[in-house]
């Protein structure tokens, strides 16, 4: 009974082109996409670590692979995914603790997540890859 009345009162908007995902929503789906991508790339990352630690020859080999422009771009994307997942994750931990749950604060914190994660990606990318 109560379920029915709640359902009836819900507003419906199925005109999809008029719906724009707000920034916290984009952050959220990127959190999932980045997590899935990092999971899929785990064997590549473990292989990189293994080769870089095994011997000085394989270390030089890894430097060669990482020096390739295409690999650099992939790694830069990977660093961004990691940093986005990291920063967005900290935001979620704060939301769990009831901090910044108001609309304005949540929007502001999602902007901060994008700014900080992109800045960290550029700094780390510049230090490690170039």
């Amino acid at each position, binding site marked *: 009974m109560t379920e029915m009345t709640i359902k009836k009162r819900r507003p419906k908007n199925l005109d999809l082109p008029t719906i724009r995902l707000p920034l916290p929503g984009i952050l959220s789906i990127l959190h999932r996409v980045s997590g899935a991508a990092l999971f899929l790339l*785990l064997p590549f990352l473990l292989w990189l670590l293994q080769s870089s*630690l095994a011997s000085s020859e394989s270390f030089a080999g890894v430097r060669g692979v990482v020096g390739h422009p295409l690999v650099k771009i992939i790694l830069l994307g990977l660093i961004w995914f990691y940093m986005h997942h990291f920063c967005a994750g*900290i935001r979620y931990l704060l939301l769990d603790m009831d901090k910044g749950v108001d609309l304005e604060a949540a929007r502001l914190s999602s902007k901060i997540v994008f700014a900080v994660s992109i800045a960290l990606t550029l700094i780390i990318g510049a230090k490690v890859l170039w």
Partner: protein
Amino acid sequence: MVNRLLVGAHYGLKDWIIQRATAIIMALYTVIFLVVVGAVGPASFEAWRGIFANGFMKFASFLFFVSVFYHAWIGVRDIWMDYIKPAGLRLAMMILTVAVLVGYTGWAVQILWRM
């Protein structure tokens, strides 16, 4: 309140907490790792290897990997539960996910302790 059937004694609280606990471990390790790499500046093989030869970093790195794998299990499981509806396929994907993650754990041990 939402009317729903509750089946079994597992409501996901344990996974919810582990997801967050592993997140905190990974976040701390990320900061430590970046500081160590920034301080050592591992341009050479010896310097890079030296980071992981250190007993504390070996322990912390292993803890990090175990956290990554458990955290990945919960996240990937959530993705399968959201998007894969046929129960058989979903179960197969979950088993495959656990299998690769257990394998990665062994691989990580080998990488860290073989040196």
